C-alpha cells in the first residue's frame, strides 16, 4: 500500500505544479485563442528572475514572487501587443512566431548565463513535512496550496469582477462580446498579461524545486498543453483538475510503466481525450471553434 500512497501524494503534488503552470496557458487559449509555444519559456524566465533576486539581493523566492509576477505581466503585455495582436487571424504564423520566441528566450538565457546551472534548491529542499504520515517536500506542498488558492481566486475574479466577466464573455463568443461593447483587444492584452503573470508566479514558486536550466521551459510546455486539452479550454477548474489528473497519470505511468516511456503519455492523452471527449472535462462552448476537433 505504501508505494501506492507515495505515488498518489507525489502525483498530486506534481499535478499541483502542472496546474500552476497551465492555468495561465488555459486562460490565454480560451480568450485569445492563440497557441503560445513560449508559455514554458515565460516560466523559465521567471525562475531565472527569481534566482537573480535571491543571488543579487538576497530576496527569497516567496517574497520575490511579488516582484516577478508584475514583471512577467509586463512581458506578457509586450508579447501580445507586438507579436500576437498583428497575427490574430493567422494561426500558422502564430505557431512560427511563438516558436521563434521559444528559441529566442531559451538561447538568450543560455547566452547570458553561459550554460551555468544555477540552483536555489539547496536552501529550501531540505524542509520536509508530514502529509498523512508520508513525507513530502515543503516546497511542493507550497506549490500545491498556491495552485489551489490561485484557481479559487481566479474563479472569483472571473465571476465577480467586470473585467473577469468580460473575459468570460470573450471566451464564449468573441463576436457577441464585441457587439455588446466589450473592448476585445484590451481584454486580450489583460488576459495575456494575466496569463504571463501566472507563469511568473509558477516560476518563482518552482525555483526552489528545480535546478535552473534554459531548457526547463520545454519540460512544462507539453504537459501544459495536455492539461489544457484534458481540462477544457478556458475553464479554470478544468485547468486545475486537469493538472492534478495529468500529474497523477505521469506519476503512475512512471512507476508502473517504464519511466522513459512516460514521455509518450502526452501524445496518448491528446489522442484519447480528443477522440472521446473533445471539449475536455469542463470545456466551455466554443472549444470546437478553435479546432480541437471537427464537428459533425
Amino acid at each position: 500500500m505504501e508505494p501506492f500512497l507515495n505515488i498518489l501524494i507525489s502525483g498530486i503534488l506534481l499535478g499541483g505544479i502542472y496546474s500552476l503552470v497551465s492555468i495561465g496557458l488555459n486562460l490565454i487559449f480560451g480568450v485569445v485563442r492563440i497557441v503560445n509555444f513560449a508559455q514554458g519559456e515565460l516560466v523559465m524566465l521567471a525562475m531565472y528572475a527569481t534566482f537573480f533576486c535571491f543571488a543579487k539581493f538576497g530576496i527569497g523566492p516567496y517574497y520575490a514572487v511579488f516582484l516577478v509576477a508584475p514583471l512577467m505581466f509586463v512581458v506578457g503585455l509586450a508579447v501580445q501587443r507586438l507579436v500576437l495582436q498583428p497575427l490574430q487571424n493567422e494561426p500558422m504564423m502564430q505557431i512560427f512566431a511563438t516558436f521563434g520566441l521559444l528559441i529566442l528566450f531559451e538561447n538568450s538565457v543560455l547566452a547570458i548565463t553561459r550554460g551555468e546551472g544555477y540552483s536555489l534548491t539547496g536552501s529550501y529542499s531540505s524542509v520536509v513535512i508530514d502529509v498523512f504520515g508520508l513525507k513530502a517536500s515543503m516546497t511542493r506542498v507550497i506549490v500545491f496550496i498556491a495552485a489551489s488558492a490561485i484557481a479559487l481566486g481566479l474563479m472569483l475574479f472571473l465571476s465577480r469582477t467586470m473585467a473577469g466577466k468580460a473575459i468570460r464573455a470573450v471566451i464564449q463568443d468573441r463576436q457577441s462580446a464585441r457587439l455588446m461593447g466589450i473592448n476585445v483587444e484590451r481584454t486580450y492584452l489583460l488576459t495575456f498579461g494575466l496569463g504571463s503573470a501566472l507563469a511568473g508566479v509558477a516560476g518563482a514558486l518552482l525555483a526552489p524545486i528545480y535546478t535552473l536550466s534554459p531548457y526547463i521551459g520545454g519540460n512544462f510546455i507539453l504537459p501544459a498543453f495536455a492539461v489544457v486539452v484534458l481540462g477544457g479550454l478556458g475553464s479554470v477548474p478544468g485547468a486545475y483538475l486537469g493538472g492534478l489528473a495529468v500529474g497523477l497519470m505521469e506519476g503512475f505511468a512512471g512507476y508502473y510503466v517504464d519511466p522513459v516511456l512516460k514521455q509518450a503519455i502526452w501524445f496518448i492523452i491528446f489522442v484519447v481525450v480528443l477522440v472521446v471527449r473533445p471539449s475536455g472535462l469542463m470545456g466551455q462552448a466554443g472549444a470546437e471553434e478553435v479546432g480541437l476537433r471537427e464537428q459533425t
Partner: protein
Amino acid sequence: MTAPQQAFAAQPDSFGLMLGRYAGLLALSALPLVLLWSNPYWVNILAYTYLFAALAAAWNIIGGFGGQFSLGHGVFFAIGAYAVARLYLDLGLTPWLAIFPAAALATVVALLVSWPTFRLRGPFFAIATMAINEACFALANYSDRVTGGPRGILIPFRAAFANMIFIERWKYALLMFAFMSIVVLITVALRRGRLGHYLLAVRADEDAARAAGIDVLKVKLQGMALSALLTGIGGGLFAMYVRVLDPPSLFSLPDIGVKFALISLIGGIGTIIGPVIGALLIVPLENFLRGALGGDIPGGHLIILGAVLVVASLFLKRGVVGAVLVITRRIRQRGRR
C-alpha cells in the same frame, strides 16, 4: 459578359514547359556546386543545403500546400535514418535499395499517427505532432538494440559506391542535389494535378473543400504519406553522409523539425521553389553564424534564428518568393499605366 469563344482559347501551360522552367531554376541552384566543388568547406555546406532544401520541400507538401503545420517530421526523418543504418549494418543491404523500405516504414508510421491527429485543426495538430516527436525521442533513447540508445549508431567509413559512402565530398553534394531536384519536380507534378489542388483547397477552407466533393481526411493522409516518404528517404541519405546517428541530433526541433518549416517559411510557404531558396539562404547563414558566434556566445546562432522566425512570421509571411511575386506584379501594373 465576355464572349464564350475566349474561354476556349485558354490553354493550360504545357507540363513540359513547367518542368523545363523549374529544371532551369534547379540548374541555377547547382551553380555554387559547380564553382566550389573542390572546396571541402563549401561542399559540405552545399550538401546540407541541398538536403535540407529537399526535406523542406517534402514538409511543404503537407505543411505548405496542405496547411497542416507538422512539428513531427523529425520522426519520419529519424525513421529513415535509423532504418537505412540498421539495414546496411545488419543485413549488408546497399543504402541505394535500403532507402525504399525505410521510406515505406516512415510512411506507415506517418499514416498511423496522422489518422487520429488530423481530426485536430491548426495549432492543436501542431501540438500533437510535437508530442509525437517527444514520444519518439524517448523511444529512441530507450530502444538500445534498434537505435543504439542515447549513444546512437556509428556507421564505419568504408568507401564504395554500393555503400553510398564516398571519399570525395562533392559526390555527396551531387547526390543531395539530385535528391532535391527529384523532390522539387515531384512537387511540380503534384501542384499541377488533382491532389495538389485538393491540398490547397483543404488549406484554404475545409468546409468549402467538402462541399466540392473532397474527402478531406483522405487528402490530408495522401499528402502526409508523400511528404513522409520523401522525408524518410532524406533521412536515409543523411545517415550515410554523417554516419553518426543519435537521438538528440535527429529529434531536435530547432535543428530538424522546425528547421524544415522555417526554411519553407523564409523561401515561401506553399510555393514550389521556395524551399530551395530558403535553404540557400538559411543553411549557409546558420553555418556562418555558428562559426562566428558559437564560441563566444553559446546558442548565439539560435538567438538569431529565433529572431528571424519571429520577424519573418510578422513581416515576411509569403517568404522571398512571395515578396518577389508582389514586386513583379507591382512593376507590371506600373508598366501598364
